[in-house]
């Protein structure tokens, strides 16, 4: 019942934007260019989606008595050693959960008072909802804490069946799905509203694009495309929500590509600009490079596991028909994947329940390949090293797009998938994830120091923060990484919208050297931006960050970054060889504070550097500042309470079972820190991070806020480094030389093979045939005909030479006869035998 309600609510939230898209794109095309209907329709769709998502979250929470939140009170009691600690939930568990729990849960872990009578009720409910292949079922994710973790999954419809292999569109609803849904729809609603103001210049029959030029030097004039922008935004929301709702990895891939194409459409929104369409292509193609890896991961999973579904497929009686991916890897009680020491293969659990599966084991290295493959997709989507270069270019899109697609939601999809697919990642993959995240965070942060375009700074900071999330996930901070995802979504969308407000107010000026002192002109933007900057920098007032009132002085970024850094420290303490995984993020935390405050001081503080820009600058209208204010509250306080706060607990409500206790090392392997290990170093790591953040802030103030230091002089002194960073570590040039040009060379080579070899062979053989035909003709004409003609000619000339004899004169004939007779007699006499 609950599962059905949740499914329907999320289905509405998911599909409404698609309907909106269809109406907006066609209605807008045939409608007036001055109409705002498309925008309000889009807002209506996504806002309704938010209401549905929030209701779904509430229903989900009520159904399990909000047990995840009470979880916190017992956090300290939990011991790492025992995986089956039962704790008394204050609220009685809801019937739905309990009944569902029966399917899987360890009976010993449940309170004895549990009313078993609920079970048949649920079965009948399930039976009524099961139509053919769309069975809705609820089941317990794991036995570790039975009252709290409830996952709802099922199938929408079937795509294809081949023997025992089946592909379908499914859903998988757990706490992470619901938090993501609520977050995405909420931020999207804010950004849609903001965009109504930001894109209002498009509400015209004749829009002048100052960045696109014709050959004669004039600007491009075109009809406004207000409706198209909102249609694409709606399509994007549909794709993104589909990605989050997806119940199997193949479906994730489907929506993965769809968000990619929406991103392509939105980056290239100003189709007249060459730079925009090139950036759009670059984004899509680099993502496809990652998706190539994703496909390889899919192939391995499909070939060895025979299913893409996350969750078990259960028939009406509650029997598992087919095991889901998340339950197929056998893990020992301590959380390690069980490997057969003889052949290095891993038994695929529940293989018996998987009739289509011809493989009963999978070589361990293929698990690594599958994990790395799927993660390669995440690298592309989340702009991680080495595929990070598309994201800064993606800033060609309108600023609301940068806020929604290229910072808050789509690029975070890589992080989301890494979190979602976590049970399938073995530790080698996690280590790669950690290092990739760590390198990305550092590299991007260094580039952000020297960027002067306000959006580019934010773009690099996005890459860097995504690196943090990956790092968090890689060092076994499942909750920390995803926690940072959600907080980052709030403060980064806030900052991007602020930058949008600045750009709008300054009439599309994006270069920070031309700004300065803007806080006087746009106080709301400056204030809300400061909130975002403090949040991302991770600032807090030392000593006042305790529970309760002290939370006022610690913004969301402080909590989530703290969680990541603390996990990294715990990881490094357990595995000292990987000390970089703590050092680099710590340095990056300082750099982050530096470049973010640099941005703020550069833009809003000090004196105006370009009076033309300053004089024409103005604060944005309410429809733009309103969302800023709302988002700034959330950016500051969404993580209220830190790791004991409700957001963190909600996110981690359905985390993989083995995460919270950590994984002890087996021979030669890595130790994964559990919650207790992290908790032990939390204070220490937090102190380090705060010191780093404050140093960065101070440095930024010194260089850009105080006015006492000549920045240009420093830039000149460090020219080499500055050039290297300003050229983005030369990644673009490198890739151009390594991949782009060779690809074109190979392309031309292939095309010329066709011309020079295959067609040449063909033409050669054609020529040979013609030649043979010529010989044939010559033989016919010269030899065969020659002989015949010779005979004919001889006969003819013989006759010809004889024709003189025929004269018609009788005397001559008589004379011939006489001569003949005389000759005959002569011969007769000469030869007659005597």
């Amino acid at each position: 019942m609950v599962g059905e309600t949740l499914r329907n609510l999320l289905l509405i939230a998911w599909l409404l934007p698609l309907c909106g898209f269809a109406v907006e794109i066609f209605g807008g095309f045939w409608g007036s260019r001055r109409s705002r209907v498309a925008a309000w329709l889009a807002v209506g769709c996504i806002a309704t989606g938010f209401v549905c998502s929030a209701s779904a979250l509430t229903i989900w929470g009520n159904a399990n008595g909000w047990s995840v939140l009470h979880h916190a009170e017992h956090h300290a009691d939990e011991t790492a050693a025992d995986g089956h600690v039962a704790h008394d939930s204050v609220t009685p568990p809801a019937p739905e959960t309990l009944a569902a729990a029966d399917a899987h849960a360890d009976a010993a872990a449940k309170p004895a008072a549990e009313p078993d009578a609920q079970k048949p009720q649920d079965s009948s409910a399930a039976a009524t909802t099961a139509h053919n292949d769309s069975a809705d079922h609820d089941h317990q994710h794991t036995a570790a804490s039975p009252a709290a973790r409830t996952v709802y999954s099922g199938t929408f419809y079937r795509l294809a069946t081949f023997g025992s292999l089946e592909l379908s569109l499914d859903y998988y609803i757990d706490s992470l799905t619901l938090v993501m849904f609520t977050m995405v729809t909420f931020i999207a609603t804010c950004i849609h509203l903001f965009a109504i103001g930001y894109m209002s210049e498009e509400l015209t029959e004749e829009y002048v694009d100052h960045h696109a030029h014709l050959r004669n030097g004039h600007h491009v004039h075109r009809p406004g495309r207000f409706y198209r922008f909102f249609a694409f935004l709606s399509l994007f929301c549909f794709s993104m929500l589909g990605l989050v709702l997806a119940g199997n990895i193949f479906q994730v891939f489907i929506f993965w590509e769809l968000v990619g194409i929406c991103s392509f459409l939105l980056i290239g929104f100003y189709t007249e600009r060459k730079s925009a369409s090139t950036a759009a292509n670059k984004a899509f193609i680099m993502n496809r490079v990652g998706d190539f890896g994703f496909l390889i991961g899919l192939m391995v999973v499909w070939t060895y596991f025979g299913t893409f579904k996350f969750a078990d497929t259960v028939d009406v009686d509650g029997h598992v028909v087919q095991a889901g991916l998340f339950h197929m890897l056998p893990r020992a009680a301590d959380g390690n994947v069980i490997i057969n020491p003889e052949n290095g293969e891993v038994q695929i659990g529940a293989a018996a329940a998987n009739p289509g599966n011809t493989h009963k084991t999978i070589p361990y290295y293929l698990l690594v390949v599958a994990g790395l493959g799927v993660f390669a997709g995440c690298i592309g989507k989340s702009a991680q090293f080495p595929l990070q270069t598309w994201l800064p270019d993606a800033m060609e899109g309108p600023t609301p797009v940068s806020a929604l697609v290229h910072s808050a939601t789509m690029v975070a999809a890589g992080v989301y998938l890494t979190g979602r697919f976590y049970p399938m990642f073995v530790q080698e993959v996690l280590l790669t994830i950690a290092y990739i995240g760590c390198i990305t965070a550092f590299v991007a942060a260094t580039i952000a120091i020297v960027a002067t375009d306000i959006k580019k700074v934010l773009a690099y900071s996005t890459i860097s923060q995504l690196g943090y999330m990956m790092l968090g996930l890689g060092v076994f901070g499942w909750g920390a990484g995803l926690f940072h995802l959600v907080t980052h979504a709030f403060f980064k969308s806030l900052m991007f919208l602020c930058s949008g407000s600045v750009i709008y107010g300054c009439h599309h000026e994006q270069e920070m050297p031309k700004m300065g002192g803007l806080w006087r002109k746009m106080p709301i933007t400056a204030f809300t931006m400061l909130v975002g900057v403090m949040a991302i920098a991770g600032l807090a007032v030392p000593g006042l960050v305790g529970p309760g009132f002290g939370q006022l002085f610690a913004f969301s970024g402080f909590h989530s970054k703290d969680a990541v850094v603390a996990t990294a420290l715990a990881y490094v303490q357990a595995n000292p060889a990987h000390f970089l995984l703590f050092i680099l993020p710590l340095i990056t935390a300082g750099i982050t504070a530096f470049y973010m405050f640099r941005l703020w001081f550069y833009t809003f503080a000090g004196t105006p550097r370009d009076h033309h820009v300053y004089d024409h600058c103005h604060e944005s209208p309410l429809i733009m500042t309103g969302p800023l204010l709302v988002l700034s509250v959330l950016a500051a306080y969404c993580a209220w309470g830190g790791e004991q706060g409700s957001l963190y607990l909600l996110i981690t409500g359905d985390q993989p079972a083995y995460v919270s206790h950590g994984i002890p090392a087996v021979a030669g392997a890595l130790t994964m820190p559990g919650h207790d290990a992290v908790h032990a170093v939390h204070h220490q790591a937090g102190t380090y991070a705060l010191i780093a953040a404050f140093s960065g802030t101070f440095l930024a103030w010194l260089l850009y806020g105080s006015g006492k230091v000549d920045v240009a002089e420093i830039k000149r002194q460090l020219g080499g480094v500055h050039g290297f960073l300003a050229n983005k570590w030369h990644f673009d040039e490198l890739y151009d030389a390594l991949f782009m040009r060779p690809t074109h060379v190979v392309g031309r080579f292939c095309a010329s093979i066709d011309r020079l070899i295959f067609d040449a062979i063909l033409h050669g053989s054609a020529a040979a045939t013609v030649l043979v035909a010529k010989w044939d003709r010559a033989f016919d004409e010269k030899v065969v005909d020659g002989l015949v003609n010779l005979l004919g000619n001889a006969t003819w000339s013989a006759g010809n030479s004889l024709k003189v004899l025929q004269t018609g004169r009788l005397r001559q004939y008589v004379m011939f006869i006489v001569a003949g007779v005389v000759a005959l007699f002569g011969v007769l006499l000469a030869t007659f035998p005597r």
Partner: protein
Amino acid sequence: MNPLFLLSILIFLPLVGAALLLIFDERNADAMRFWSLGVTLLTFIFSVVLWCQYNPAEGMLVADVCEWIPSWNIYYRLGVDGISLPLVVLTGLVSTLAMAASWSITKHVRGYLILFLMLESGMMGVFLSLDFFLFYVFWEVMLLPMYFLIGVWGGPRKEYAAIKFFLYTLAGSVLMLIAMLMFYFASGSQADSFNLLALAQKASQGGLMSPGTQITAFLLLFIGFAIKLPAFPVHTWLPDAHVEAPTPISMILAGVLLKMGGYGIIRIAFPLCPYGAQYCAWGLVAIGVVSIIYGAFAALAQTDFKRLVAYSSVSHMGYVLLGLAIWKINETTGETMNSDYWQMGLNGAMFQMIAHGISSTGMFFMVGVVYDRVHHRDLNKFGGLMGLMPLYSGLAAGLFFAGLGLPGLCGFIGEVFVVISTWSFSPMLAVLSAAGVILTAGYILWAMQRVYLGAEYRGPHPEALTPSNGRENAVAAILLGIAIVLGVYPAVLFDVMEPSIKAMATAAAEGYRHSHAEAQAAAGQAQAALNR
């Protein structure tokens, strides 16, 4: 409706329509066009009736058999199953749309229409014949109109392209003829010697040909079909034929004619010589992969819009070959391994054929629409069409995305199903084929950027770039609509194809097992003789 009547009418209705064109006044071109459009539309409607009438669970729907040349055991034998039915409907659809796109043909309209309708008859015949000889006849019947349609109504190098097309295909048909005779005599010149069903039945019991002969016969058939597909390295007729052919003929060529190669492989080559097919499987898969990568690279280098789309066809049809051939067996027992994955590959390949028939037809049509206006196809001399022809550009973007393999559109399902089922055959080839997705995105997006995006149009005749008309929009919208339906709900096609493909695969696997045992025994005897 009676199957014999329904199937025959699909073949002969266009022919009758062509004959009746003679009573029209030659000066009234539009009347003849509408008449031909009506005929193709009616044929399409009949094919839809057949679709509704067909029950996938029943397997092959065989019409009553009539004698044709009984002294040589040649019969008029028609039938349809889940493999051919989608292709029949596709033929009806593409012919109708291509006819709707034929309004731009103004030279010798009557001759053009007659040849066009004859071509449709030939294509229908190929997909509906169950008699090998009849199949062969239709195969050739379809060749001649195509030759004239390219050779008379084509572009500047039309004679060259037409002759190249003709000779390539003819070379393939000759090899097919030899194979046909091999089957005829191998089956003992009996009454069923041209009966594809009976031959397949015999082959599945291992009683048709020895393993060695099967390999020869398979290769002969395969070369003939690979030319049509077209697979690397016998694909070079395709770019020339496409570039020179008029737009509607390009649509037919890409939409239907290429499918005959794939259809021939799955209908004739695999069932009749399973041992040969399996023996060559690795090579086939490799050729498929090379076609994918090679075609994509070559497409990247083109500057002619139509040539680019033509090479994309080479690349996309590579997936068909790849999907068909991922047949893995256990070397010792001869049992088929991972048969579900092979079936997924077969289904994916069949789906890819239909999907390519939709997306590629659409792409060629879209190229034709601009070619009709500006009379050039140089990719570097376009740009800004999005502003000048917005609706056309939007529809074109959708169709090109379908070709790119975007989820939600038909191209994705075929491609990705084939690719993910390939790992179970050969991981290396699977990885290579997956790399094709990057290149595909590259050449399609780059082409779109150069044609549709940008500030302004940079080629000749800018004044001719008027928004697309209703007829053009309708053709494109129908194709895009089908692309979306197939992409979102592929089960509509899989449900029809799957049972027939499964039956084919099971029979082929059975046939392989018998021949494998025979080959093993022969090898054992040879070994024993050697030991003595």
